[in-house]
C-alpha cells in the first residue's frame, strides 16, 4: 500500500490472478485425491466382498452334509436344492450354544443385484418352494452383481462331471459345488469347494452312482 487511497486496479488484478491460480491448483489436487480415494474405497469393498464369499463357501460348502426330512407324503427326502442360480444346503457348524445345534442351513441366491446368504437353524425344505427362507437371518455378501450361477460335481465311473442343476430326488449331495459371480463392472470370480471332505477316493457315506 503506497498511499491511503486503497489498492490499485493492477494490484487487485494481480492478487485475484494469484488467488485464482492457487485455487485452481488446490481444486485439481483435491479432485485427484478424491478420485484416488474413491478408487481405493471401491477396491477395498471388492476385496472385502471376495473375502466374505471366501469365508462363506469355506464354511458352508466344505462342511455340507446330506440331510433328509420327511415331506407331506411321509417320504424322507433330501433338503439339498441345487439350481442354476440358487443353492440351499445343510452344513456342519461350530456349536456356539446348545439351542443352535451343530447343523445349520444356508441358502445362497441373487436378490436385486445382491448375493444374499440366508441362514436358518431349521431345514429349508425344497417342497416349500421359494418361501422356505422365511424367518431366516439374511446377510448381503456382495453387491452390484449382474449374475450368479452354480455348478455341481458328480462322479460317473471315474470321471468328474459338472452340471448346472442337481436332481432333487437324489439323496446325495454333489461332490463339489462351484459358484460363479459376475459383477456389473464386468469382473467375475469362481469358487469351487469339495463337500464333506469328498476326494478322489473318499465320499461322505455310500453314494449311489448315477448312470
Amino acid at each position, binding site marked *: 500500500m503506497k498511499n491511503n487511497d486503497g489498492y490499485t486496479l493492477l494490484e487487485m488484478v494481480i492478487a485475484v490472478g494469484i488467488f485464482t491460480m492457487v485455487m485452481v491448483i488446490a481444486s485439481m489436487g483435491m479432485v485427484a*485425491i478424491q478420485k484416488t480415494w474413491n478408487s481405493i474405497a471401491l477396491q477395498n469393498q471388492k476385496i472385502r466382498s471376495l473375502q466374505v464369499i471366501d469365508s462363506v463357501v469355506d464354511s458352508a460348502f466344505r462342511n455340507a452334509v446330506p440331510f433328509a426330512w420327511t415331506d407331506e407324503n411321509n417320504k424322507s427326502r433330501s433338503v439339498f436344492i441345487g439350481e442354476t442360480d440358487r443353492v440351499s444346503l445343510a452344513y456342519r457348524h461350530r456349536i456356539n450354544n446348545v439351542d443352535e445345534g451343530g447343523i445349520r442351513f444356508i441358502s445362497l441366491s441373487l436378490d436385486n443385484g445382491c448375493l444374499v446368504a440366508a441362514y436358518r437353524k431349521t431345514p429349508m425344505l425344497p417342497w416349500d418352494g421359494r418361501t422356505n427362507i422365511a424367518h431366516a437371518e439374511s446377510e448381503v455378501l456382495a453387491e452390484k452383481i449382474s449374475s450368479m450361477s452354480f455348478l455341481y460335481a458328480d462322479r460317473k465311473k471315474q470321471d468328474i462331471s459338472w452340471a448346472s442343476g442337481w436332481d432333487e430326488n437324489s439323496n446325495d449331495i454333489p461332490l463339489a459345488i462351484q459358484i460363479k459371480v459376475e459383477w456389473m463392472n464386468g469382473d467375475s470370480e469362481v469358487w469351487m469347494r469339495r463337500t464333506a471332505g469328498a476326494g*478322489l*477316493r473318499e465320499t461322505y457315506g455310500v453314494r449311489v452312482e448315477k448312470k
Partner: protein
Amino acid sequence: MNFNGEFINFREALKILNFKLRAAMKAKAKFTLVEVVVALTVLGFAVISASAMCSQSVNRIAKAKARWANQHMISQAAEYFLLAGANSQPPSEIFPYKNVRVSCSVVNAEGLPAGVDAVSGQWRLATYEISLAGASGEKLNSLKIDKIIQVSDQ
C-alpha cells in the same frame, strides 16, 4: 445504510470499508517473507503427504488383491486336484484364469517316523505338490498337501 441508520451512496460505503480494512491491517503485524514461505512449505508438505498416502494405499490395495488372487487360484486348483486326482487338469470353467498354469505332481511323503512305511497294502501316504506358474513359467505360488492315495493313483 451506515451504522447510524442513515442512507449513504456506494462510493462512501467503499471508503468506509477501505478505512476499516486499513485500520485492521495496521492493528496487526504484516506477514514477513519467512512466515509466508514457512506457511507455503507446511501447506506443500500437507498436500504431498496426502498424495503420498493415497498412492501408498493404492499400491497396498493392489498388492493385497494380487496376494488374494494368487492364493485363491492355487486353492481352486488344489480343490480340483484333490477331487479329480493329480493327473487331471482343471477345465476352463473351473480354472478360468488366463496367463497362469497350474500343475500337480505326486511325491513321497516326507518326515515320516523311522520304521513307518508310507505304503500299506494298496494305500500310500503321498504328497501333492501343486505349483502355480505365470505365463513365462515363473513360479507364483506352491502348495503341499499330504494325502492317502491308492498305489495305482500315481
